[in-house]
């Protein structure tokens, strides 16, 4: 199957991008005996799942900072624990409030009920019921993310039976759950949560799950669905669990890279691809920025689809409809990242001291109006002056990322729209002001934060695009909204990793099942290529 039919190819597959998905695809192909090379533009592997010592002694998970959906079958197939994958669960979801109150949600249901009771006894009781219902739907969705997306227009019997199977599972859901499913697909996160809960304090941090990585607000329709994605998170079979990767998220990529190398894949860093090579209408390799050509039977891109087709390939090789669809594909990044090195722990006014509530994710999301106001500013081309923050202090659970007694604070920030009113290229001029807004916001909840900062790294959507190839700074290679998922990702009819260009395949987060440190697109793309016998 892999025998070159007369032509001299350097490789069976050349993979563009050493992100975790590109590496996963390489590992699966190498495991199947294919000759594979991965080309990474930067000096370090991982793409957006990368650990870097930006400031001496402190390791930042520069972009992606938590792990929840990394597919268990990939961990097993690629022996990732043997190659150094080590996940540490987060203990808590903490919400400090400006009025001195706070809410912490724990794995311990009784403790969580007590916490929510401060704000609403009804919500405290409903919380567990909600979790059970949404959890059931999430189980259904999980089956969907572990297989290539079926194409509803296809007459391929295998795809039809997969669709039928999905339908059967859907039919197996009770009427209540079906209704819930439809609501999730259509409603806004806030409207959906309003049907269950009364407390704004609780709904704030719950609703943000619906907007992460989208240019939508918590009151925008379609955001409810993304809540489900967050209920799918699992570690060790316990759902809704989020974790850190020891040594930062780059260690997930490194474990996959070591696995790929053990299977015989070749991995090159500082090997930026300039163009995809075409011959007789077929992709046949790549040319590097230094002019080197690498020939392969297939070219597999872990890069975001628009970058892959419009920049690395070129519109001239595509038909107009496909190009138009790509241009309509919603990237519009809406978030940034601020990483801090600090000489002491932040001390929250609402829950002072060093305690287990810090050992999880900390949300700055004090109410629905706060979140919607943050979105309002973004709609008209500004970053939020008081943004939603998702803060994690990984050094509390993984002391290897900071010197003893010192800490790393990772802040995911939304909204930071790529399209600021001055134009995205003006982001570098606004970078520090954006960083200040983030630090000012957090410091309102933990005075003394500013004095503790030893180093600050600010990443705007522009930086995410320029440095990490995330077009328009979109962290998921395209919004995870219902219209851009499943058989619609990235373009309707082309959701099974194959593209209209012969010999060119996709394996990144812009393909099904989407973004996050999941490995799904990489693993599934490789399996699909092997199944189709293209290499």
């Amino acid at each position, binding site marked *: 199957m892999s025998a070159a039919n007369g032509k001299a190819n350097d490789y069976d597959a050349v993979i563009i991008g050493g992100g975790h998905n590109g590496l996963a695809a390489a590992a699966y192909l190498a495991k199947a005996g294919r000759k594979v090379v991965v080309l990474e533009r930067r000096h370090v592997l991982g793409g957006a799942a990368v650990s870097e010592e930006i400031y001496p002694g402190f390791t930042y998970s520069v972009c992606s900072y938590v792990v929840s959906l990394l597919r268990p079958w990939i961990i*097993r197939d690629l022996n*990732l*624990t043997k190659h150094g994958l080590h*996940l540490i*669960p987060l203990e808590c979801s903490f919400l400090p409030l400006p009025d001195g109150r706070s809410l912490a949600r724990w794995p311990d249901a009784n403790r969580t009920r007590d916490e929510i009771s401060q704000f609403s006894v009804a919500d405290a009781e409903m919380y567990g019921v909600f979790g059970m219902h949404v959890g059931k739907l999430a189980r259904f969705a999980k089956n969907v993310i572990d297989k290539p997306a079926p194409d509803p227009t296809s007459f391929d019997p295998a795809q039809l039976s997969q669709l039928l199977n999905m339908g059967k599972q859907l039919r197996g859901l009770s009427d209540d759950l079906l209704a819930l499913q439809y609501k999730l697909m259509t409603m806004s996160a806030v409207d959906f949560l309003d049907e269950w809960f009364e407390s704004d304090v609780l709904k704030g941090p719950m609703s943000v799950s619906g907007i992460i990585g989208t240019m939508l607000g918590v009151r925008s329709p379609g955001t409810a669905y993304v809540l489900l994605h967050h209920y799918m998170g699992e570690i060790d*079979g316990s759902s809704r669990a989020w974790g850190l990767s020891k040594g930062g998220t780059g260690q997930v990529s490194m474990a996959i890279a070591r696995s790929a190398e053990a299977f015989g894949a070749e991995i090159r860093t500082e090997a930026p691809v300039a163009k995809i090579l075409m011959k007789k209408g077929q992709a046949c390799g790549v040319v590097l920025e230094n002019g080197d050509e690498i020939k392969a039977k297939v070219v597999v891109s872990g890069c975001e689809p628009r970058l892959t087709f419009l920049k690395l390939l070129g519109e001239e090789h595509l038909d107009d409809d496909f190009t138009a669809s790509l241009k309509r594909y919603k990237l519009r990044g809406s978030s940034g990242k601020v990483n801090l090195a600090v000489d002491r722990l932040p001390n929250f006014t609402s829950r002072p001291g060093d305690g*287990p509530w810090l050992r999880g994710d900390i949300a700055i999301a004090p109410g629905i109006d706060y979140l919607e106001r943050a979105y309002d500013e973004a709609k008209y081309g500004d970053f939020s002056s008081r943004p939603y923050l998702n803060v994690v202090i990984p050094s509390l659970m*993984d*002391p290897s990322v900071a010197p003893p*007694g010192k800490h790393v604070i990772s802040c995911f920030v939304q909204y930071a729209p790529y399209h600021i009113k001055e134009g995205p290229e003006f982001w570098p001029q606004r970078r520090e002001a954006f960083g200040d807004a983030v630090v000012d916001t957090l410091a309102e909840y933990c005075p003394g934060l500013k004095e503790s900062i030893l180093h600050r790294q600010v990443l705007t959507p522009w930086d995410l695009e320029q440095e990490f190839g995330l077009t328009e700074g979109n962290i998921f290679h395209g919004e995870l909204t219902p219209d851009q998922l499943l058989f619609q990702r990235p373009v309707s009819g082309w959701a099974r990793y194959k593209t209209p260009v012969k010999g060119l395949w996709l394996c990144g987060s812009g393909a099904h099942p989407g973004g996050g440190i999941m490995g799904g697109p990489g693993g599934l793309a490789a399996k699909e290529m092997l199944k189709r016998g293209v290499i």
Partner: protein
Amino acid sequence: MPKPTPFHPRTQALCHSYQWKEWAGYYAACNYDAHSEREYFAIRNAAGLLDVSPLYKYEFTGPDAAAVLARIMTRDITKLAVGRVTYSCWCDEDGKALDDGTVARLSKEHFRVTASEPWLLWFRRLARGADVTIRDSSRELAALALQGPRARAILDEVVDFDMNRMRFFRVRRMKLAGRDLWVSRTGYTGDLGYELWMAPEDALPIWDALVEAGKPHRMEPMGLDALDVSRLEAGFILQGVDYFSARFAVIEARKSSPYEIGLGGTVELDRAPFMGQAALKAERAAGSPWALVALSLDWEEIERLYASYDLPPHLAPVAWRSAVPVYASDGRTVIGQATSGTWSPLLKQSIALATVRTRHAAVGARLKMEYTVEYARQTVTATVVDRPLFDPERKRATPGVKSAKVTG
């Protein structure tokens, strides 16, 4: 009614879960918080501090101490150099295991033995006529285990010795917080770690100094539940769980030789007579009927079993000790039993220790283990894997010594 250990004033104040169990007549914390997850991850990423005072301890002193220990133990203790520790087993006259523990040579004529049960009478019986004094020091010594990748850095800050130079399975007298103590580089977690042996009156000041030094390294107090998960990953057996001491085995079938419980490596046969030697020689020649193995359970099968009831897979947060039958690959012929197991959060595998018929014990053998889902007993494929499952380099590495040759 269990007694408090010398550390109880500290451990009690920290034990928010109120979950204790009895260990050799003492109160021992199961976990300090509602669950043991944080403590487990502290062992693997930072450090855990565990009160191991309930261990039985014996002091052998005198010119014949080494010879007597060599007679008791499966290991030839006469070869143990001063400042070294070894792990050994001891047997009855039929070569059946009684217990296992460490033997440390503190000086030429002073050894310390740890055990999980009282053995003073037994030891003294075997020392008859020799110039040795054997004393039960269990109550004279409080003990702590400091385990995890940060254990060395923490200790280094508080003791008067360069911990970077202390090798695996060594023991040394040191000073900590102005108090004398013994520190051995040993443990039951399979990680970098140390055990500290001190007078009971020094227990609290030493605990306090360690807790203070441990703070910036995110050290956590750790209980027995977290220990149980980590010892299974390290492949360590537990007397009374994974095998029975021959002394209290009510039937012959419950007795095991060291070869049958994975301690064959501790048996040094060809030397001066020792307890069980003849029987062990015979067994070595004939082969052992049983073998201890580590098993890795097939996760997809477990998922399918749960899915057949429309259930998500459930993982108990603690290790289990209720033995279940192990079957040959046919799923019907009983060939042994799995005696303890756990989900390994680190290896992402369900693992177990089992005793099986020797012909089924080869690494790679695919056996079946009983597995109960929704009240129904089923089986899942359990593959024999190498033991230990988790064996990090840091466990043995000694950064301050050029060639860290390992013994023990």
